[in-house]
């Protein structure tokens, strides 16, 4: 099994991507709603990633 070395950002994006796909798939009833909700979840994940990253950067001084 090859070993992967990912940055924090890459790992967070991959996690957000896979989780958003599953959340979209299991929570909504039509394909259109699933795609929309999946994209919405991914957007929120990214927003949280950037928001918390800036918060930690600024909080660290």
């Amino acid at each position, binding site marked *: *099994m*090859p*070993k*992967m*070395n*990912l940055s*924090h950002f890459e*790992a967070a994006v*991959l*996690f957000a991507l*896979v*989780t958003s*796909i*599953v*959340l979209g*798939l*299991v929570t909504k*009833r039509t394909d259109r709603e699933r795609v929309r909700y999946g994209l919405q979840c991914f957007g929120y994940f990214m927003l949280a990633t950037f928001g918390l990253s800036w918060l930690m950067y600024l909080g660290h001084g």
Partner: protein
Amino acid sequence: MAETSNTANAHLPPIGKWAPALALAWVVPGGGHFLLKRSGRGAVLFASVAAMFLLGLMMRGAMFQPQTGDILTTVIYVGGFLSNLAAGLFYFVTIWLGYNQPDIAGHVHDYGTKFLVGAGLLNVLAMVDAFDIAVGNKD
């Protein structure tokens, strides 16, 4: 309270209708959906759980062993173990092949551990979805 519980049980279809789908959904991620003739959704769920689990392995994440102690230790280690177990076949094959990564410092290993737990939790969502389809709560 007891009345509420009895009412809930009265509405639950016979176990034979949903148990096979639920069990297969646990052992093979997406398998419950395949059994219920939702192949497209089953394939996407299988691919998602597999991707999450394999990324966790490639990042050399650690598997949890159940430990008890203070409440936080119990929640983290028993919860982590159950989440790993929820990945079904992926977990059993990995353990059977001798994967035994110690929990070492480093953000990549740490993410790997979370990806392995995340794969199990995504499969729990897939199991709940398969159950809902089997009992008729969903299309």
